[in-house]
């Protein structure tokens, strides 16, 4: 079974308590339609499991198939550097049909950030090493498509649906071994 090769650290984008019973790591692509559907599934899982679930998001943009995936990832990373990662992450997925520079600028402005700074971030590739590092770690961990989920370090191979994922999270929780 594929396992997470890069442990979760403070450098990851995390939502939830560090001592949660289950850590759910998602490798996602902002333009991937399956990730767009899974976004709502994850929201429901977070609501259901509350403090028992720590969510981690890592970039896995398939840029050769999805021309907007990298720009969206840069936008989220830029917002993250200013403390608004999850807000940007959510807005990108909730407006997945409008990915592009106007949306990225609007997201920046909504959180009091500079669209000019964002434009510079796009041009200078400053967040590329972080995004590429996420991607490489995903490949090494056996990510074979997006979204890919790991529950306490083990890849979840079932469908990205609430019932199945909830059962798997409960199993992970029962097993313990959070990592």
């Amino acid at each position, binding site marked *: 079974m*594929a396992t997470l*090769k890069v442990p979760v650290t403070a450098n990851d984008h995390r939502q939830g308590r560090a001592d949660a019973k289950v850590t759910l790591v998602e490798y996602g692509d902002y333009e991937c339609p*399956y990730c767009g559907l899974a976004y709502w599934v994850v929201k429901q899982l977070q609501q259901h499991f509350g403090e028992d679930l720590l969510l981690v998001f890592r970039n896995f943009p*398939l*840029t*050769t*198939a999805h021309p907007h995936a990298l720009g969206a990832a840069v936008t989220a990373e830029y917002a993250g550097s200013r403390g608004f990662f999850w807000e940007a992450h959510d807005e990108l997925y909730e407006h997945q049909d409008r990915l592009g520079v106007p949306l990225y600028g609007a997201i920046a402005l909504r959180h009091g950030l500079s669209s000019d700074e964002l434009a510079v971030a796009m041009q200078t590739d400053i967040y590329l090493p972080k995004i590429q590092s996420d*991607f*490489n770690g995903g*490949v*090494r*961990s*056996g*990510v*074979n*498509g997006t979204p890919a989920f790991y529950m306490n370090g083990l890849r979840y191979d079932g*469908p*990205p649906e609430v019932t199945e994922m909830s059962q798997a999270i409960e199993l992970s929780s029962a097993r313990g071994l959070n990592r």
Partner: protein
Amino acid sequence: MNTSALDDAKETTNSPVQGPLPAGTVAPDISLYATPDQRLSLHELKGSPVILAFYPADWSSVCGDQLTLYNQVLPTFREYGATLLGISVDSAWCHQAFVKDRGFHFSLLADFEPKGAVARQYGVYDSHLGVCKRALFVIDKEGVVAWSYVSPMAINPGADGILDALDALADSPTARPPKTSR
């Protein structure tokens, strides 16, 4: 994550060679059309590692996802000096359209006539379905199979196994540059 009948198909094991050629086997040479008018031979690539990715069919969901992933990982494969070749029984014309549509930057070889002949030699032809199995081979710079793996038809095997095999090759003593002899 759409699946088709082909993606869901169960494996059958009636190819003449039982199972994929294992590590240590000399890789049979390959000479197949990479474009409608150009053949590519495995021996031309001797001196650097080669990744062979046999897959069931152009345009199928799992194959498309798998090859899109490999297209994205191509810069990493190239860091090892490795060449990636996709192989299926589709024709060179079909491959050409698939490559153009998906923006692939590696060659797809047509194991088209005699159908599946190369896949049979490598022990990865599914004669029940008439397609290549979803199989991976890493061949070292001397032309010897270093690693092979057959994935269930419906499962995209990812790229981690390939990278682990390339790592092992890079770490092996034979990876050192050969001494020049006169």
